[in-house]
């Protein structure tokens, strides 16, 4: 290899490294912007779904990491439904684990002394995962909504929350839920109908 050829090869290599560095920085900036834009809503979304602040935070953090690891190369337009799909999966896993835990608890049973101290109303999680001091300050309408959402079947709740709270369109909701667009429409429509029945005709007024 002549000196000239070596110099040319070095220049090309250096240029490529600089380009790669710029690309990584751009990707970081884009992802940072995206996550900063969705993280608050995603956290509230998860809090309402699992009714536990710490677990909701874990779910959102895991979703952020998975998006960065697996889907950062996807077009930015696909990030929102993908991100909420990961969040949804995290929420479903959480519910599965809770179901198993409850089953195990019921097998072992509780002692009579424990039962006498246990107040199911006091122990019941707040539908919107707030602390007691916050609950006092909050509009009653939010409590009503959270309770009504909690009573909906899972798919209906997911479809309603993704469409209404996160503003995803039908296609995006379908991607996030892993179901067809037709099913999204059905679940969403039933959710709205059920919520209207639960909250009353004049809820929105």
């Amino acid at each position, binding site marked *: 290899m002549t000196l000239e050829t070596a110099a040319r090869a070095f220049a090309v290599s250096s240029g490529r490294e600089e380009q790669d560095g710029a690309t*990584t920085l751009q*990707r*970081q900036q884009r*992802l*940072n912007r995206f*996550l*900063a834009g969705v*993280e*608050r*809503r995603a*956290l*509230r979304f998860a809090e309402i779904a699992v009714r536990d*602040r710490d677990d909701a*935070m874990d779910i*959102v*953090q895991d979703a*952020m*990491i998975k*998006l*960065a*690891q*697996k889907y*950062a*190369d996807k077009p930015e337009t696909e990030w929102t439904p993908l991100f909420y799909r990961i969040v949804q999966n995290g929420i479903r896993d959480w519910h599965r684990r809770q179901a198993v835990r409850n089953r195990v608890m019921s097998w072992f049973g509780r002692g009579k002394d424990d039962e006498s101290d246990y107040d199911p109303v006091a122990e019941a999680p707040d539908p*919107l995962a707030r602390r007691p001091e916050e609950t006092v300050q*909050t*509009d009653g*309408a*939010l409590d009503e*909504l959270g309770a009504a959402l909690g009573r909906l079947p899972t798919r209906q709740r997911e479809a*309603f929350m993704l469409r*209404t*709270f996160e*503003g995803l369109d039908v296609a995006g909701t379908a991607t996030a839920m892993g179901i067809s667009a037709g099913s999204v429409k059905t679940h969403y429509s039933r959710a*709205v*109908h059920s*919520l*209207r029945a639960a*909250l009353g*005709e004049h*809820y*929105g*007024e």
Partner: protein
Amino acid sequence: MNEEDDDKLVRRARALFDSSVDELDAERLSKLNRARRRALEELDHGPAFGSWTRLLPAGGAAAAAVLVALIVLRTDEVAIDVPMAPAAAEMDFELLIDEDSFEMLEDLEFYSWMELTDLEAPRQQS
């Protein structure tokens, strides 16, 4: 009428949700910020691993090409090692540099006619 009520409900629900998002406390915002930074750190690790795995097929193809090249070269070497091969090559070379062979090339038409005649002669005799 129903659609209007549905729209009102959806708007109200969205407004409530939005206000609850706006009221997130500093502690949770700080945790979200840390979570985001942690995710962005993973971005540095993710692509490196991803590009490495993406290069696997290309690397495999290159390795296969090298292997094939080695086999072919080795095969050639084996062919040269055959005892008859140098002798045959030497003989061909001698034929080529022989003066008669040039004359033969010049009279190629004549020799091909002669060959045909030799081939047909026995048939005519039989």
